């Protein structure tokens, strides 16, 4: 929050006028970078609008007949809308998973920041160690554990592990320490509100940018997660969209027609993420600013 509302920057009107040459050079670098980052996405979009025949015969970076909606229809018609099922699975794993992960991480980070209790620093250090343990390193151990209780190949096997966000605890602790004043908690206490109620009614509002940031990054982490579903799931009906598209992509050499579905499916799988990021950018950018600093 604070970083974003810093005094307005005096862009281009600095006391020293920059030379035209360095401006041109800087803009050229930005233009090349834009081409590099956006061309693949542009290509994916254009390719998704073409008929099968036009895919290889027309200019690859410009439109031919605009067939996008027919292609989406074909994708959803394929094998009883299995793709739609994958999209819904991903939405469930990532949406509900990230929401709960954010709540649990925020409560823990807030408690560590605002209360003194025995073992507080030790607890935080263990969780911080958890930040350094990547999700992929846990996939096989989790599989071994879940197979002990016969719970592999279930929704739970992918859903439950994604409710843990050590990075979320780290971020919300820093954010809570900086932006939830003790006086406000104290005032709520004097008004007779309980600690838990104070957290939900008062503190969460001040934590909002951090909460949105944690939610988004956990959402992306779950949506992008590949190893855990790959190793846990056999039943196609439980697949998240990334695993489904991966499996289709391995079948392209046997079923060439599936290639068009992979392309249009890839486009559809990234649109929700891009829209979410664009819509919530005001929040996560300030949350990121505070998390990256300390």
């Amino acid at each position, binding site marked *: 929050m604070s970083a974003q509302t810093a005094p307005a920057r005096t862009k281009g009107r600095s006391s020293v006028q920059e030379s035209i040459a360095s401006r041109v050079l800087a803009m050229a670098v930005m233009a090349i970078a834009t081409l590099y*980052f956006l061309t693949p996405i542009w290509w994916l979009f254009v390719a998704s609008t073409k008929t099968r025949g036009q895919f290889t015969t027309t200019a690859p970076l410009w439109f031919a007949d605009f067939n996008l909606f027919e292609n989406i229809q074909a994708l959803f018609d394929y094998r009883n809308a299995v793709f739609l099922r994958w999209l819904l699975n991903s939405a469930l794993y990532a949406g509900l998973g990230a929401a709960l992960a954010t709540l649990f991480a925020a409560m823990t980070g807030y408690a560590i920041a605002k209360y003194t209790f025995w073992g507080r620093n030790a607890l935080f250090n263990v969780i911080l160690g958890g930040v350094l343990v990547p999700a992929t390193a846990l996939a096989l*151990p989790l599989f071994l*554990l879940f197979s002990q209780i016969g719970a592999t190949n279930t929704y739970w096997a992918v859903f439950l592990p994604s409710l843990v966000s050590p990075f979320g605890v780290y971020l919300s602790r820093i954010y809570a320490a900086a932006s939830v004043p003790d006086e406000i908690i104290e005032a709520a206490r004097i008004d007779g509100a309980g600690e838990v109620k104070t957290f939900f009614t008062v503190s969460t509002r001040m934590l909002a940018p951090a909460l949105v940031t944690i939610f988004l990054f956990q959402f992306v982490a779950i949506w992008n997660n590949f*190893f855990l579903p790959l190793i846990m799931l056999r039943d196609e009906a439980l697949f998240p969209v990334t695993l489904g598209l*991966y499996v289709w992509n391995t079948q392209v050499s046997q079923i060439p027609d599936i290639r068009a579905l992979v392309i249009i499916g890839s486009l559809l799988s990234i649109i929700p993420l891009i829209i979410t990021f664009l819509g919530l950018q005001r929040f996560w950018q300030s949350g990121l600013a505070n998390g990256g600093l300390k």
Partner: protein
Amino acid sequence: MSTDTPTRGKPKSRAVRHRGALLVFLAPFGVLFTLFYIVPILYAIYQSTLVVERDGTFGAARQVFGGLTQYIAVFQNDAFWQSIGRVMLFGIVQVPIMLGLALLLALLLDSPLVRGTKFFRLAFFAPYAVPGVIAAIMWGFLYSPNLSPFTDVTRAIPFLSGELVLWSIANVVTWVYVGYNMLIIYSALLAIPQEIYEAARLDGAGQARIAWSIKIPLVVPALVLTGIFSIIGTLQLLAEPQVFRSFTSTVTSDFTPNLLIYSTASVPNVSLAAAMSVVLALTTFILSFTVLKLTQRRTQA
């Protein structure tokens, strides 16, 4: 990352007073963290100490305690160390290029030389919203000698050949993560008070000079953070090479440590795979910890 909070001068009796609330706050995360972080790690360590034993050639297999047998097997496993070497080489080249690019773009965004920063910020960040699997599928098409929009280039340069495929994968990873790292660095740059630049401007320092002498030293903590996450990511490479296996046979089932762990576990040689997981996790931890300590020492000196 500092670990000590400034304890606000409140009485310690709070802990006793708010025990119930603390339980509500800490229990959900605590239980899940224990079940899905700590227990799996302990279980993997336990599993890695087991060996399969048979009574004669056709006897039933059973698992018995084998001490460090699996770890000796890991250390003698050439494929494992080759895959570690491969991702290390990948990281030594890719991480500096990626962070260098991210730093350059962040500095340009922060300089008065560039207009339209809002657009560029989002354009560069967009690939982060593309899952690794999808990014790899997309670039797989772009690299293809027949299907690429740039067939003139892809027919001349064999991006999917044995020599180049590692760097083609490096490009996919760079494409996805430059914008993310750029935003973290850019956020750190935004937090620098403008007054710091005034003296330099009065002395007639140009933007390049200001960037080099003032801005870069001040964003070192952000660079360390992004560097550590990049190292972790590199050692854990899996999705991109796994997808590339559909495009080229040059990516083998032991290309990266995680691919090898996956294929070893599906053999199934679960105990060996568990031992590999433990060694990989330790290697990752030691490496990122070392980077953290080294850079801390340098910035303090």
